[in-house]
């Protein structure tokens, strides 16, 4: 088979095999982690805060976001989060892409039907279609005379998207500006059981070991592949790779457990409470609480 038939089938554009795409996927995960680690290590407001204080205030702000009912208050909260991201050395464009390219798509799909009067009755904002001889009953459901986008539907959808956006922004900001280790310490501070945070820490740690193993398997496969492979063959390889990875993870978990026992672990994990709250952390917690109360108060006045 001619080489160009395999690698440049259409218009000279390179078509990548599923193996190459998977290897790229593995690299992308590592790249994302490097990127997040770099932001977490930079100097900024959020990076300077105690992880426990950050976790508590983030949860508080998420609670405020969930309780807000007016769009101006939610817009204000989202702008405040953007400002926080800015003063925490988070590149705004990347931050906006991560949140506002994803949130509208997923939440939009969820709330889209509710903007139409056929799902949620309301005052028409934009009439799309007139049904001839409307008012038909379908069981308990009545078809209206017109298909319209409603004011109440749009308002509800905007509130929903803004609310989800604020919650996702806060979570992204917390994870981007906090190293995983510190985040786990923060969770321990709010009385999340140590065993739970330890499992999370180890999961994070071993994802990369297993990712390396998987990457090597795919590279080995790539090095031995000439020409095209059938879909059935690809499925067989992926299935067997999953099996091998599973077996490797079992062996590894046994070894890790042995290594823990060897260093004195006796089934109950112990950790150092190695963070102390500083004045800035208290100031931040009080400031966030007051800001949350003011936002809620303003929200009640507007709505």
């Amino acid at each position, binding site marked *: 088979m001619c080489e160009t038939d395999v690698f440049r089938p259409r218009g000279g554009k390179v078509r990548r095999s599923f193996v190459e795409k998977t290897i790229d996927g593995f690299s992308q995960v590592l790249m994302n982690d490097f990127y997040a680690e770099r932001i977490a290590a930079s100097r900024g407001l959020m990076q300077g805060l105690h992880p426990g204080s950050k976790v508590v205030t983030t949860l508080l702000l998420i609670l405020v976001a969930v309780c807000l009912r007016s769009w101006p208050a939610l817009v204000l909260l989202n702008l405040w989060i953007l400002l926080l991201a800015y003063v925490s050395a988070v590149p705004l464009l990347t931050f906006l892409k991560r949140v506002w390219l994803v949130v509208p798509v997923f939440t939009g799909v969820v709330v889209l039907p509710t903007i139409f009067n056929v799902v949620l009755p309301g005052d028409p904002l934009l009439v799309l279609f007139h049904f001839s001889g409307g008012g038909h009953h379908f069981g308990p459901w009545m078809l209206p005379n017109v298909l319209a986008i409603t004011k109440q539907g749009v308002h509800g959808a905007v509130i929903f998207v803004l609310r989800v956006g604020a919650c996702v922004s806060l979570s992204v900001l917390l994870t981007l500006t906090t*190293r995983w*280790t510190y985040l786990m310490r923060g969770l321990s501070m709010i009385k999340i059981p140590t065993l739970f945070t330890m499992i999370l820490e180890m999961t994070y740690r*071993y994802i990369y070991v297993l990712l*390396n193993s998987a990457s090597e398997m795919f590279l080995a496969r790539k090095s031995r592949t000439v020409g095209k492979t059938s879909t059935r063959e690809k499925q067989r390889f992926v299935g067997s790779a999953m099996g091998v990875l599973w077996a490797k993870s079992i062996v590894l978990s046994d*070894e890790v457990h042995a*290594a823990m026992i*060897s*260093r*004195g672990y*006796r089934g109950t994990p112990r950790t150092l409470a190695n963070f102390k709250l500083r004045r800035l952390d208290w100031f931040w917690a009080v400031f966030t609480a007051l800001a949350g109360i003011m936002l809620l108060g303003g929200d009640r006045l507007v709505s």
Partner: protein
Amino acid sequence: MSVKSNKAIFELAGVAFDYPSGEKALQGIDLTIDRNEKVVLLGANGSGKSTLLKILNGLLFIKAGTIKAFGQDLSEKSLASEEFSFDFHRRVGFVFQNSDAQLFNSNVWEEIAFGPVQLGLPEKEVRRLVDDMIAMLGLEHLQQRPPFRLSGGEKKLVALASVLVLDPEVLLLDEPTNGLDPRTQRKLIRIIQQLSASGKTIISTTHNLEIVSEIADRVLVFSENHQLVAEGLCAEILSNIDLLAQVNLIDAEFHVHPHATETLVHAYGETKRH
């Protein structure tokens, strides 16, 4: 656990161990390892030497025979005692062959602190021990780095630090130089020699004949039948070509330097003769 005047640290008699599948891993092992000895367990892959190290660390329990550590029985029952377990794990450290298995914490500092924290040492003491160990092995630049961003040599050093931080009397090293570049291998060998000179008992496994004389005074040879078939000083064992061939440590093409009448081990300007 009280320190006995007896020199022996480990005493094994008729030790046997089977894998869960029923396959034999060790048979009829009789041996004694004394305080401050530098011993290598030499054998081909699958001969049972790593299994023996795990048994010596109380991670696996024997099927037959007896094993004593510091004069006391080493068994599942004795290790269930908090006092014995604390003392034993403080006195016996194990560096695994697979560093990835040993480095399970989020960063190097926490990795080194894991042992002291699990043994319930006070926070101030933990911090002092960890910081001292980091300074001793020159790991300052790595202390906040997650293990998956370390090179193979760095991982091995951190694994060693995570064990040495408890200042164990006995150090068990499973294939310590496997997969290391020459410079890191040399650094590790020097550390092992310094630890031995400071009075620690060093028990290593290897199938790399080149490093045996550098990390051991006495060699225990394991056959592919999972038995201890010979023991002696490095020079005796390493010059016994028939024995080494029989246990699959050298092949028919093995040869020594034609210009030398003795085995030569070269290492950065040092030459040792046996």
